[in-house]
């Protein structure tokens, strides 16, 4: 496989939250067109990794570095990271009462692309994307994530990802709480974005990986990647759990 340009390079990353170290020396490089899956149990630091890459202010990098498109990330604010092409699909997307999905999507697409979009062009783009994700137009007049089911929230995340066309897509447990139909739709969305982006999929389960084929699978324990491999590693982790890895520690 021909390697695409480097999108993300994490070296020896140590991260603390309120003085407690969560990531303890994590190293990972993602190139354009690669899909990486990180698996691990609750508390392994998977969501911390996603949040710290996106720039969450509660996380402090105490050692190591993150480079995005070969530039150090620590100088960029969260919104600048978004405008530079980074996207995080949230495990628990925030509710924004009173803000309609349609308005939100247009404003956010405009913010990220830094262009004014004509109502007409945007409507067409939106309609196509929603069609692919099998979303009804009634979504657009609802308030952002307000009263949404788990599946609806995840589909809205994927819709945003399609519209924002990221260069780096971070998907934090986007598969959790989805039925099989929704899971397939989410997978379809990821597969559409993947060829042009670096993808980092954080998951507990192997089942999303039946529909999105990862190039690399990483097992994470206690703030570090302890084992990397191909798709077969995901199967093994699903079947055997993580104990066999802990013994190596």
């Amino acid at each position: 496989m021909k390697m695409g340009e480097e999108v993300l390079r994490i070296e020896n990353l140590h991260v603390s939250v309120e003085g407690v170290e969560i990531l303890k020396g994590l190293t990972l490089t993602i190139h354009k067109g690669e899909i990486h899956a990180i698996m691990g149990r609750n508390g392994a630091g998977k969501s911390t990794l996603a949040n710290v890459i996106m720039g969450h202010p509660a996380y402090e990098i105490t050692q190591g570095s993150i480079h995005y498109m070969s530039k150090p990330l620590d100088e960029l604010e969260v919104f600048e990271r978004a405008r530079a092409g980074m996207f995080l699909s949230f495990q628990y997307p925030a509710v924004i009462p009173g803000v309609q999905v349609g308005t939100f999507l247009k404003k956010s697409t405009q913010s990220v692309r830094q262009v004014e979009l004509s109502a007409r062009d945007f409507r067409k783009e939106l309609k196509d994307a929603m069609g692919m994700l099998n979303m009804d137009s009634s979504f657009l007049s609802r308030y952002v994530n307000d009263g949404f089911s788990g599946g609806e929230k995840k589909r809205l995340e994927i819709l945003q990802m399609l519209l924002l066309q990221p260069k780096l897509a971070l998907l934090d447990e986007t598969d959790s709480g989805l039925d099989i139909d929704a899971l397939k739709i989410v997978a379809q969305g990821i597969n559409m974005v993947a060829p042009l982006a670096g993808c980092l999929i954080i998951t507990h389960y192997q089942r999303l990986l039946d529909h999105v084929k990862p190039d690399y699978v990483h097992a994470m324990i206690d703030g570090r990647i302890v084992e990397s491999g191909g798709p077969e590693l995901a199967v093994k982790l699903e079947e055997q759990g993580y104990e066999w890895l802990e013994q190596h520690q």
Partner: protein
Amino acid sequence: MSEQARDAVGDYRYGFHDPEHATIRFDKGLSEQVVRDISALKNEPEWMTEVRVKAYHHFNERPMPKWGNCSELNNIKFDDVTYFLRSSKQTEKNWDDVPEDIKNTFNRLGIPEAEQKWLGGVTAQYESEAVYHSIREDLEAQGVIFLDMDSGLKQYPDIVKTYFGTVVPYSDNKFAALNTAVWSGGSFIYVPKGVHVEMPVQAYFRINAKNMGQFERTLIIADEGSSIHYVEGCTAPTYSTDSLHSAVVELIAMKGAKIRYSTVQNWSSNVYNLVTKRGVAYENSTIEWVDGNIGSKLTMKYPSVLLRGEGAHAEVISVAYAGEGQHQDAGAKVHHLAPNTTSNILSKSISKNGGRSSYRGMLQVTPKASGCRSKIVCDALLLDEHSRSDTYPTMEVGNSTADLEHEASVSKISGDQLFYLMSRGFSEKEAMGLIVNGFFEPFTRELPMEYAVELNKLLELEMEGSIG
């Protein structure tokens, strides 16, 4: 503009002012003679002069309200206020006849444009009197009367005499007395039986002069089975000395009628805005107050409805935005005086940069008013640690069949919301603007679209100053 001046003006977009344009300006201060002179200048019938004089004496004797912001009220220097200022010889029907600078002011405020696009009629008041007034011919042909209040009194003295002061008597409170004594301008509307005015009619109130007092008086009567939507907007220049705006609005909804009264007051932050708004709703009628308070130094305003006829309904949706140096003391009062009457009150407030917003509400159910329902929801959003929000609800329930609900909440913008929005490309201030607009959405969706868009823009501008 010097740095200092810009600091004072801030983001207030309407803070410009024109050279003063007085054809008649009264000396500062108030006396019985001033009251009589205003009445004489307007050639009013004697009964009106007498009402004014009685109200003036009541104003003198009546103590300041004991609630709201007493210390701030006591700062009002009544002797420094100009009580009457005529800036145009007459009310024109064509914008081209309005004096040039005044016309330009209203152009900048977008009034003529709005009139062409979506309004059924417009009154533009500048200082004490209307300078422009117009109503669509089709409405006039249906018998709809829409005039400035001075013309209303001249042309329909009997209707005015029948209803003036019946909903808000001068003895109601100190500022109602002041308004009755020196009122000038405002709107007079009568909608005949069964006529539905489909397009909103608008009044716009502009204070231009320094230390000005504006005391408009509005009376709207919707006859049986009719309906009307009245919209009002208000702005003033930013001066270092204070102006006083003290209006009285009286609404009368006859059997089966519907009145909606929408306000977005965006006074500059040197204006005391002390307004009495009340409506009487007869059998199966509806009165809706949609009341937005964005500007002013101190606002004290509690739109009220007296539900006097069986099955009548009141709706009060209000928002208040209190920034630095501002106190919005707003709320709603609903009196259930007849059986099976219903009311909904929704109040939303935002406080920022040390601003203070208070909800002050009164809900009354009298013993004979059985089967009433009322729902009150008050939500406050605090944008920082040094801002303040208070709730002062009062309930007097004299009938045990009443079904009442009251919910109140105080919230802050959460870090999760900000992070989520910023991860979608919004800067921190854009994210806050979005959250604030969303918070006010239940209010803005009730406004005509053009107003809603304008208000959202305004709030986004206000957010720019909120990040350190």
